[in-house]
């Protein structure tokens, strides 16, 4: 740990919070600090959600050779001299706001046949659950809303409940497409919870901690002073990271695993009968869930808030966290822009026949890594890489058997 730990910027958020709450008597002091954390998470990730929707649409647009939303400006910005060149459009920054206003003012339609209670609870539960997962993510040094001993467990316990909300939405809508979506959501959750959990078990094994803070702390050193000690840079960690990200795509219903809301098959799946504010809540929950899972991936595999190189530590830890988080989010968007969707049975096969076995192999791999601690790093690294790459190739080959690109004959 270097001296930068006490830098002004590094401690600034905590200092600010303490200054605001330290004058309060003991129990209230604690409550106020919690409240501030909640408000801060809500504010930061709420606005991140808003910007993310815009960024996603713009990135998708750019990938597809079009500009994306670039018209909706914010009022009065045209008068600001330094924004004059944007002619009040400021690159479409007003789009999320316009979307929000549109969503809020739309009519809320509840089908007559719908299960009124479930139809109402579903979006609320979904948003609440995905917000709750933010409680244990360490956003920076000393910046974790709740420090728990078993915070990783907490994260996945809370995250598991979101698919329940998808089920409620699908079931409660009394719509056949939504019902199919509900079935798909359940099956998908059951299939992907397992690889998601199994993929981080190696991290817990090596870090020796179930607490997110502990896991980040375990990754905060450097080999030879320049290779960060992040788990993603080990063979088992890399495999775990990939499996985690694939499962995270499925857990957050993102393309190519967006089967519950597959628009070309099920119109909008569980969202078919939702409109207005409730739809906005679902939308928000999806993005927040994606953000939370990315944050957890950063914490578990990418060294959390640690800087990649020692001399970069002068940049505050939360900035590093944000950079990594945004990188992963851009990855989500990139994948969405590229890949077609899997079919339901293939989705299950991918989980049960590919990810889960790989996870188990990876567990063994981690044990090997742990037991060969005395060997030189390069040897260890190669050994473990072979252990994970070999089954990957073998299982992958069996999965793609018989679907090699074909050759075609021609008639003259």
């Amino acid at each position, binding site marked *: 740990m270097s001296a930068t730990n006490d830098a002004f910027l590094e401690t600034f958020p905590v200092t600010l919070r303490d200054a605001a709450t330290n004058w309060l008597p003991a129990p209230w002091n604690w409550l106020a600090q919690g409240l501030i954390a909640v408000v801060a998470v809500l504010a930061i990730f709420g606005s991140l959600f808003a910007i993310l929707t815009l960024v996603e649409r713009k990135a998708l647009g750019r*990938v597809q050779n079009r500009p994306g939303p670039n018209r909706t400006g914010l009022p009065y910005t045209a008068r600001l001299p330094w924004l004059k060149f944007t002619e009040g459009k400021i690159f479409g920054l007003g789009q999320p706001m316009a979307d929000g206003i549109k969503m809020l003012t739309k009519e809320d339609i509840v089908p007559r046949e719908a299960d009124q209670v479930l139809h109402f609870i579903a979006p609320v539960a979904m948003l609440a659950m995905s917000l709750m997962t933010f409680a244990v993510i360490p956003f920076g040094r000393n910046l974790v809303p709740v420090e728990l001993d078993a915070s990783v467990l907490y994260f996945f316990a809370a995250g598991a409940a979101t698919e329940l909300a998808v089920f409620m939405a699908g079931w409660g809508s009394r719509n056949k497409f939504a019902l199919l979506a509900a079935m798909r959501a359940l099956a998908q959750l059951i299939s992907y919870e397992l690889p998601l959990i199994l993929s981080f078990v190696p991290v817990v094994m090596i870090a020796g901690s179930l607490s997110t803070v502990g896991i980040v702390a375990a990754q905060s050193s450097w080999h030879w002073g320049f290779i960060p000690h992040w788990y993603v840079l080990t063979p088992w960690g890399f495999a775990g990271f990939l499996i985690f990200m694939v499962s995270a795509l499925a857990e957050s219903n993102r*393309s190519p695993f967006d089967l519950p809301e597959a628009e070309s098959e*099920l119109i909008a799946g569980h969202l078919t009968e939702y409109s207005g504010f409730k739809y906005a809540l679902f939308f928000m929950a999806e993005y927040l869930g994606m953000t939370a899972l990315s944050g957890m991936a950063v914490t578990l595999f990418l060294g959390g808030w640690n800087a990649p190189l020692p001399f970069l530590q002068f940049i505050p830890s939360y900035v590093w966290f944000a950079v990594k988080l945004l990188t992963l989010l851009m990855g989500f968007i990139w994948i969405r822009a590229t890949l077609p969707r899997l079919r339901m049975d*293939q989705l299950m096969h991918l989980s049960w026949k590919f990810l889960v076995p790989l996870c188990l192999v990876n567990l063994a791999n981690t044990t090997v890594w742990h037991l060969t601690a005395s060997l030189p790093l390069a040897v260890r690294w190669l050994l473990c890489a072979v252990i994970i790459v070999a089954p990957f190739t073998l299982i992958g080959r069996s999965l793609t058997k*018989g*679907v090699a690109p074909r050759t*075609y004959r*021609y008639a003259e």
Partner: protein
Amino acid sequence: MSAPSENSPSAVRPPSSGADPSAFPGLTSAPGSNIRAVNDPFHGDLLEVSMGPHHPSTHGVFRMMVTLDGEVVVKLKPVFGYLHRNHEKLGENTTYLASMPYTDRLDYLCSMTNNWAYALAVEKLAGQPVPERAEYIRLILAELTRLLNHVCLAGFLLQDCGASGTPLMYAFREREKILDLFESLSGSRMMCNYQRFGGCRIDPSAEWLDRVRALVAGFPRFLDEFERLITGNEIMMARTPGVGCLSPKLAISAGITGPMLRAAGVDYDLRKVDGYGIYPRYKFRVPLGAHGDTYDRYMIRVLEMRESLGLLEQVMKDIPGGPIMDPKAKLRGLRPKAGEAYGRIEGPKGEIGFFLISDGSPNPYRYRVRPPSFVNLTVLEDLCLGHTIADAVIILGSIDIVLGEVDR
């Protein structure tokens, strides 16, 4: 998901009617092992879903009444006619010429080939020759239309697979270039109304032909990139092979034409068989599939695009000068002798034919369109049975229908 082994030919076709269940003892004769009999007394856990007419992936106002066992299609009935405007009656109530712009609106992606097919039928009916240069222009436009249609189809198919618009937008980027060419030639991007009986409407300039050459030269680069994005993609390889296999026997019996037929392995291309226009003068190959599944249908189209490019390259080298309209051709007041004629060409979607009966009056007595996508839809149920609902969507996408043509 095991694919239906062999499509049953016509005689043992599974009944799709709900009209008289006693006449058809269930779907037990249907292909595929995982189809539960619809007439199972325990019917309740089948889910009947009406996909369409307002559904994102039915390519227009098309409806599939799907009965699902879980996610597996056990019964599928196409319902259409929402766009029906009785095109044939319109054609019978107007002059021969006035039907020409209406043919644009049949398959609104391929107005040029529709125009040609209609012009060909009328020329057959009236015994009208076409000058040399016009034949060249017609071929160029038809092959450009084929490019345009196939590239759109590939994009839409991927859209149906769930690729959030990216391949579609790439496809549309290239399509726009062809549409620009059409616009600068005929004045309209999609409703070209370009062909006339005995020639074409506007003589393309040398500059226009140069633009076509440039497009033909640049197109393979796009195709390569598109194939890198799609063809080797594992998800595409998981989704499409083995899905919606069409046996050659059924394909022939059901009158399937176009890339769908050739994907089933039947060597039948009207450009070769009928040898209309100046196609016999040029060398091009006809790609043939072996499985007749969705992947083959996609790949055949990609390969056909490449062949079309080769063909265009040859044709662009020797376009003769001369008139584009036969001097004896009548624009107005065409009154062919009494008789009938069936003219057909290989449209991008298959055989598009026009059948005309003349009674010597300025209006055709009978004006019939043989739309390829309408006939190709015949086998939709056979292809989808035993596959999941997600597959039904991409099978429909790979059949390549345009509702303007199906409903007429």
